[in-house]
C-alpha cells in the first residue's frame, strides 16, 4: 500500500501511510487507540475505499469497491468480533455465503454433511485444531475454538494471500493465546502474508518479523522485530523518541 490517505469529512484518519507485507512473514501493526490501525486495515480489506493512495498486490495495482472483492483477490480478515453467526454450527459458518450444495431432483440442497467433513479436515490439516462437536452451535465453543473457525473460514479459500488478524488474542486466556500465536506461525509457514494488529507487545515480539508503528494517522516507523526492543517500539507508539533524540 502506498501513500494511503483516508478522510472522513474533515477528519484525516490516515495521512500518506505506506505499508508493505510479504508472503511468509508476520507484520505487526501497533499503535495507540485512534492511531489509524483499524482504518488502515479496513482500507486494505476493501471495507473502506481510500481517499488517496494506491494498493498493489504482487506488483499489480488493485482497487476494491467492497470487502467481497478483496476476498476474491486473496485478502481476507479475521475480526476481533470474529463475525460468526453464533446460532449456526461451525461448518455453516465456515461456508457462509459460499455453501456447498448437492442436487436433489434438480434443486440445489445444502450439503451439510460434506460441509461438516470439510470443516473438520481444514481445521485439522491447516490449523491442527479438533473440535469436540461439529453439530453444536458455534456459541457453545470456547473463545479459541471460535477463533479457529473464523480463521479456517479465511484460509479455506485457495487464493488467500494476505490474512489480517485484528486483536486475535484480546479476548483469550494465556493458554489460548499461546495456541493462537502458534497458529499464526503455522499460517506464516504456509506462505501467507499475515498482518497482525495487537495491543500486546509481548505477542507482537513473539510472532512478528517486522513491526509497523502508527501514530495519529501516520506511520512513524517500521522496525525489524529482531533488531528492536519493546522499549523502542513503546517509545515510538507514544511519541517519546522525539524527547530522547
Amino acid at each position, binding site marked *: 500500500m502506498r501513500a494511503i490517505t483516508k478522510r472522513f469529512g474533515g477528519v484525516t484518519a490516515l495521512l500518506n501511510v505506506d505499508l508493505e507485507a510479504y508472503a511468509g512473514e508476520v507484520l505487526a501493526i501497533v499503535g495507540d487507540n485512534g492511531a489509524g490501525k483499524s482504518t488502515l486495515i479496513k482500507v486494505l480489506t476493501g471495507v473502506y475505499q481510500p481517499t488517496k493512495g494506491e494498493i498493489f498486490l504482487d506488483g499489480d495495482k488493485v482497487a476494491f469497491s*467492497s*470487502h*467481497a472483492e478483496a*476476498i476474491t483477490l486473496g485478502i481476507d480478515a479475521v*475480526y476481533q*468480533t*470474529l*463475525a*460468526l*453467526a*453464533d*446460532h*449456526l*454450527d461451525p461448518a*455453516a459458518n465456515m461456508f*457462509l*455465503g*459460499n*455453501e456447498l*450444495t448437492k442436487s436433489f431432483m434438480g434443486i*440445489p*440442497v*445444502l450439503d*451439510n454433511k460434506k460441509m461438516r467433513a470439510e470443516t473438520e479436515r481444514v481445521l485439522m490439516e491447516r490449523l491442527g485444531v479438533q473440535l469436540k462437536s461439529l*453439530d*453444536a*452451535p458455534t456459541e457453545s465453543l470456547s473463545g479459541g475454538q471460535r477463533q479457529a473457525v473464523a480463521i479456517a*473460514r479465511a484460509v479455506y479459500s485457495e487464493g488467500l494471500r494476505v490474512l489480517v488478524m485484528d486483536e486475535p488474542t484480546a479476548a483469550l486466556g494465556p493458554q489460548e493465546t499461546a495456541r493462537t500465536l502458534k497458529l499464526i506461525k503455522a499460517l506464516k509457514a504456509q506462505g501467507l502474508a499475515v498482518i497482525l494488529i495487537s495491543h500486546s507487545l509481548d505477542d507482537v515480539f513473539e510472532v512478528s518479523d517486522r513491526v509497523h508503528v502508527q501514530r495519529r494517522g501516520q506511520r512513524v516507523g517500521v522496525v525489524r522485530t529482531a533488531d528492536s526492543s519493546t522499549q523502542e517500539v513503546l517509545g515510538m507508539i507514544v511519541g517519546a523518541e522525539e524527547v530522547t533524540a
Partner: protein
Amino acid sequence: MTAETHKQPLSERLEPYIAIIGPMVMILAILVFMGIVEPARYFRTTNLNLILLDAALYMPMAMTMTFVITQRGIDLSIGSIAALSGIIMAFLIKQYGYSVYVAVPIAIMLGALMGLINGLIITRFNVPDLIGTLAMDLVYRGFALVLAKGLVLARFPDFLTDIGRGQIPGFVPIPVLIGIATMIGGYLLLTRSYFGRYTIAIGSNPEAAELTGISVNRHKVFAYACILRVVAWPSARAGVARAAAPTTAEPRRNFLRFSPLSVVHTSVSCARDSR
C-alpha cells in the same frame, strides 16, 4: 465420553433441548387440565379433530412468520393479507363466476404481492418493520372491509368445501395434512436451503452475514422480499383455507392474534433444531 455424560446432572443434559421441551410441556399441561375438567367431551375424536383443524389454519402462517422473525423482522399485516386474499378469492368465485382453479392461484399470487410490497417498504424506504407492516395491516384490512362491505360470503363450490371439510383417510382433516406438509416444507427450507441458511445467519449476526462476502444490501433486500413473499403465500392460502373451512369468508377474522404465538413455539424449536 459416555462416562462424562453420565456424570452431568439431568438439568444440564436437558439444557440444549429446553426450548423444545418447554412448549411441549405447556401443551401437555393444557391437555391434562382439559382432560380433568372435561374428561367426557374433550378427548372425543370430533373435538380433537376440531382443535387440529383450528391449529392447521395457523400452521402455514406460523411457519413462514418463523422465517421473518428468525431474521429479526416482524410482519404484523399477515392476518390482513390472509383476510384480503380470502375475500378476493371469494369475490372471484361468487361475483365473477371464476372457477376455483383460477381463483385460488390468483388469491395466492395477490397475497404474495402484498408480502412483496411489505418487503419493499421495509428495505427500500428504511421503514422499521413494526411500523411499516402495522400500517400495511390497516391498508389491507381496509381494502378487505370495503370489498366485502361487511358481508359474510358463503356457499362455495364443492371443491373448496371438500378441501376445508374433507378428511383423509376418513378422520384426518385435509387442512391438517396441508398444515403438516407446510411445516415439513418449512423445516427443510430452513435447514437445507441457501434461503434458510442466510435467514438464520442474518438473524444471528447481521454484521457477520455482511462481512462474509454476501453482497450486503442487495442480499438483505432480496431476503426480505423473498421471506415476505413466502410468508404471503401460505398466509394467503390460510385465508383460502379459512374461507373453505367454515365455508364462509369474512374480513374481520383476526389471524394476527394467534400467529405470533404459534411462531414463538415453532421458531424457537426450529432455530434449535437447525443446527
